């Protein structure tokens, strides 16, 4: 177990991106060389409706400092309706996290189309900045998972 | 000599517009009722800010010929709104000491009995600190 030093805080951020819009938007951000911090790691899912709240809680439990989910804009889901379900699920989950005292802003949903490389990069920059302002996630981390 | 870069930044900040969005279509100049009185034309204003040639702008006649009629603001297809840039440059000048375009002692000779208060108030706001 390492001892916390005065090192600069590098947040762990998990981004769930749907394959059709947001992942492609992230690709576009890449091919347009629109940078955002390396703290963001993307997990590809077929649709935002594939994101189980358990995944998000799991990430926090394992030490993530922020989790963001990106999907197609409402109305543009590749599977027609997936993001509408995702929107309800995430709204309720976020509200619950707020209710148990997790800082607002550790979770976020953003709709990013395949054409919105700029938005993707901007969103990630903003989100990382927000997590920096919130600091390390101490409330939800399963302490056993720190190595 | 002012710092041209920071002055340009200040103009962008005051105006809240991004001159880089300009596509140089000239619709602002096509629209402007004061065009013929201006030495630096509305569309040129945009590139002057981009090129940070602020000295020329603040010394231009155009600053005091703009009517703030918002025609260019309304019609600009790129959301650049040159009228706002001009007003910002004017602010830059009047906020500096002695930059007023309208001096108090020249007012009496400009007055006429029918002149509405509104005119004086507006001119004061636009021309003076």
């Amino acid at each position, binding site marked *: 177990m390492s001892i916390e030093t005065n090192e600069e805080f590098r947040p762990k951020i998990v981004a769930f991106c749907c394959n059709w819009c947001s992942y492609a938007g992230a690709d576009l951000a890449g091919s347009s060389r629109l940078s955002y911090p390396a703290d963001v790691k993307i997990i590809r899912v077929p649709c935002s409706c594939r994101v189980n709240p358990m995944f998000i809680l799991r990430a926090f439990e394992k030490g993530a400092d922020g989790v963001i989910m990106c999907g197609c804009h409402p109305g543009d889901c590749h599977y027609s309706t997936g993001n509408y379900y995702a929107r309800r699920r995430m709204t309720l989950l976020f509200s619950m996290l707020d209710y148990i005292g997790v800082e607002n802003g550790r979770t976020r949903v953003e709709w990013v189309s395949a054409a919105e490389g700029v938005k993707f990069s901007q969103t990630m920059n903003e989100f990382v900045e927000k997590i920096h302002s919130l600091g390390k996630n101490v409330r939800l981390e399963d302490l056993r998972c720190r190595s | 000599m002012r710092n041209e870069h920071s002055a340009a930044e200040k103009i962008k900040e*005051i105006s809240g517009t991004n001159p880089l969005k300009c596509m140089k279509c000239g619709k602002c100049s096509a629209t402007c009722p004061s065009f013929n009185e201006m030495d630096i034309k509305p569309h040129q204003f945009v590139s002057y800010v981009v090129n940070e040639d602020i000295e020329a702008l603040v010394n231009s006649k155009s600053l*005091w010929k703009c009517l*703030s009629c918002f025609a260019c603001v309304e019609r600009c297809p790129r959301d650049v709104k040159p009228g706002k840039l001009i007003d910002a440059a004017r602010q830059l000048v009047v906020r500096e000491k002695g930059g007023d375009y*309208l001096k108090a002692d020249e007012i009496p000779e400009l007055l006429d009995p029918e*002149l509405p*208060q*509104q005119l004086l*108030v507006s001119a004061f*706001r636009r021309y003076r600190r």
Partner: protein
Amino acid sequence: MKYSYYPGCTLRNKAKDLDEYARASARALGFELEEIEDWQCCGGVYPLGTDEIATKLSSVRALNQAKEKGQDLVTICSACHHVIKRVNDDMKNVEDIRTRANNYMQLDEPYEGETTVLHYLEVLRDKVGFDKLKEKVVNPLTGKKIGAYYGCLLLRPGKIMAFDDPENPTIMEDFIRALGAEPVIYPYRNECCGGYISLKEKEMSQNMCQKIEDSAKGFGADMLITACPLCKYNLNKNASSELPVYYFTELLAEALGVKEEVAK
């Protein structure tokens, strides 16, 4: 129906008649203009600089008073309307301005753009209704060909003023029709009269006003109406004065048969 009313400095002075006709007509139409207390001058021009607060505060005070009374705020002068409407938009939508203005004002409850700002013409159109107005007309202005002069401040920027189509407005024409007269549509009705520039650059204003007058005359107008004291001044002073210029409220009072009341 009661409205909060912001007359503005010119209507207290050089444009008294604009105000008096408006009040008399309001009574005739069954609504009341309740002048807000201790109003201050709006400043005449909207401070475009996004970093300015002080010049916006008088508008905020007026807006907040209306809010406290739970009334819509009515204006008549185009300049006042423009300034107050835009400041209201700032208070509603621009967080930075809202925060700074509220910090300065220290109100019991922060003002966040809750008040609806209406121009007198909008009250006629949206609250009274031009159909209703038409019914109340006792002296229809039949046969008069009237050019509406909008100027800049009521219409632009269209998104914020949301007064009418900034390039092809109809509210004043509909108003003219309601009074029984014939509106004359001419292309310079939304072009600038020169505004405050006439103080120092008379020729510029003359140039513009002449174009406006010529255009209106060319399309057959025999008079112009406006809502703005400065427009009226410029059109009177800086054009050939072949067309008389009236405040729209004067014609309104005339059509409603209350003009004499004011003259007394």
